């Protein structure tokens, strides 16, 4: 089932399937480790942001950016 990363509940682990990107910002997001094929765990939702765990790194990303990330 495809959904956006922004709607994932804390604690769940999802697999990133695509980044629906428009600009170079999404290149940076991939370089920071959020890439198609990778497993992401949503650790926390706070204010306008999400905290993700990607492998051994932790990434904070705004919900409006996470909306463009497709997960399954």
């Amino acid at each position, binding site marked *: 089932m495809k959904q956006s990363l922004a709607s994932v509940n804390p604690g769940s682990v999802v697999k990133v399937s695509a980044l629906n*990107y428009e600009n*170079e*910002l999404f*290149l*940076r*997001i*991939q*370089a*920071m*480790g959020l*890439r*198609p*094929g*990778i497993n992401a765990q949503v*650790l*926390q939702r*706070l*204010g*306008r*942001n999400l*905290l993700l765990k*990607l*492998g*051994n*790194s*932790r*990434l*904070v*990303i*705004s919900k*409006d*950016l996470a909306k463009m990330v497709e997960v399954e």
Partner: protein
Amino acid sequence: MDLPKIALLGNPNVGKTSILNELVGARLKVGNWPGVTLEKREGKFEIDSQEVYLVDLPGIYTLYSNGEEEGIVKNYIFSEKPQLLVNVIETANLERDLFLTLDLISLNTPMILVLNMSDEAKALGVEVDIQKLKDITGLPAVKTSAKTGEGISQLKKTIKEALKNQPLPNKNLVISSQNLSKPELEALRSNQIKSILGEVYKTNPPKNTLTDRLDAILIHPVYGLFVFLAVMFLMFKLAFDFSSPFMDWLDGFFNSFLSPLVGLLLGALPVSEWFIKLIQEAIIGGVGFVLTFVPLIAISYTFIVFLELSGYLPRASFLMDRYVQALGLNGKSLIPLLLGFGCNVPAILSVRLLERERDRLLTMAMIPFMSCPARLVVFAFFASIFFKNPAVVIFGLYIFGVLMAVLTALILGFFIKTSEKSYFLMELPPYRLPSFNLLFRIVWVYVRDFIYKAGTFIFASAIVVWALTNLPPNREQSQTIAAQIGRAISPVFEPLGLGDWRMSTSLVPALLAREIVLSSMATIYSPSLQQQENEEFKILPAIKDQLLSLAQAFPTAILNTLKPSSSAFEANSDLEPSLKKEISKHISAPSALSFMVFLLIYTSCLGTLGVLWRQAGPKYTLGLFAYTTILAWILAFITYRLSSLIIS
């Protein structure tokens, strides 16, 4: 300078600075990247008596995005053409870091790989086959842990060989990005990373790491706030209450020991009294003025650098983001702003912990509005003369300052354009206990930088202020250049209810620091109040006194820190009541209020201007000085007019 140049490159928080520190040691230097307030760390070291230059480039994740750090990195690589790139990789995050590594490989220039933080990787159950990594990339690679010192000598050896052999990456990894669209490039990158990782990387992650456990509390939406407040309280206590006895001691050392001592020695020589005064007050006083900041800066820096290296700072901005995002600020901006209530000088120095240029510029503009103890002393003096409830007036002034800071951020934010929309994208590194060596090395470098760069500005300006208030020599206060300036500018202050030339004259020496306005008023309004210190100066007892008071500073510092309240909010004015009487004869309550507002808003502090000059350059400093002065005038004018209506 034709030294071979080596550039350290890597993602943020991978330990580049500790590698730099291990290699260059005491020759570490800090500066700014040209045109921005972003910090540059660099140094030199020797390889077989050949000196090489090493620079720590800003941490980035990819060359191909358009942020300010990426711009600096690309500009450095393409225009300075370093002989060797040293790509520092956080071993446990090899998968993420390989993205940048492959970007760099595509540059096809000599490069080596450093797998840093190997101790951390081991604890996380990560194993990297370094030999295979070398084979695949064609590049030399070293395993290091800057923390334990592992692999550092091996790294030096590898750098030495690489400078000679100029190792280039395997051609089959080099992607020429020009012929590819972004999705194609990304897909290719992704495949490259997967295939490399499959060969070299093994992991068996533990369930619950220390970082997981600490995060459960430190970034908890509720507990985390309490921890943040506690951390801020501790920072404030250490920065101001712990350092104040040492600052007092330094002040005493220069003004009540060194200055009379030099006076005594010079008095034996055939030199004019005026020359002795110049040495005693301008030179020794000026150096003392700069150096009294040192304990404050050293201690607040130690705390801030500790927070930075420990990994707490990005969490503070994650946690506080929702409270400050409306202002277009970063959560981390709260740290410099809060420090500002204790002293604007370390507050401005600490904006370096913010990543974005925009955040740094906005925060630096807000800090001077945070009312500090120097202002409190003045407020307490005037408010107690003219108002029944001085505490209410003073509290009102603090709040007013904060409101003006917010207003300034909103105005300036409108002008500082940003290509980046207001999103939040940041890594939270694992918690790390910084090594003492690195912590103290960095703090020492900052203190040295303050003394050399900001200190020279402050010292030179202090001498100018001294000259203004003491020249022409041997004249009364009312005849000095300062008094002449005071008379000349008094019409400007007339609409603020401050037309008395003595008020405007007292603002000249107060440029040094605001609290000086009181002592200068004392000398101008009632020269008779001045007490000449004619106590005889005896060398041996004076030395004993100095040692004794230094020894006392330590327990006082500890007691201060343990007190629940902060001395930054205690005003003890030791000025005689007779000055209060004298002042109340000459000015009215609305004038006093207008004067307090003027002094609150206008940047009358050489220390602040000095560090702004160092951090943001002359244009920004002078611009902010002009802005605060004009704003102060307008606000004082409004205050005077309104309060005249209400009070009289």
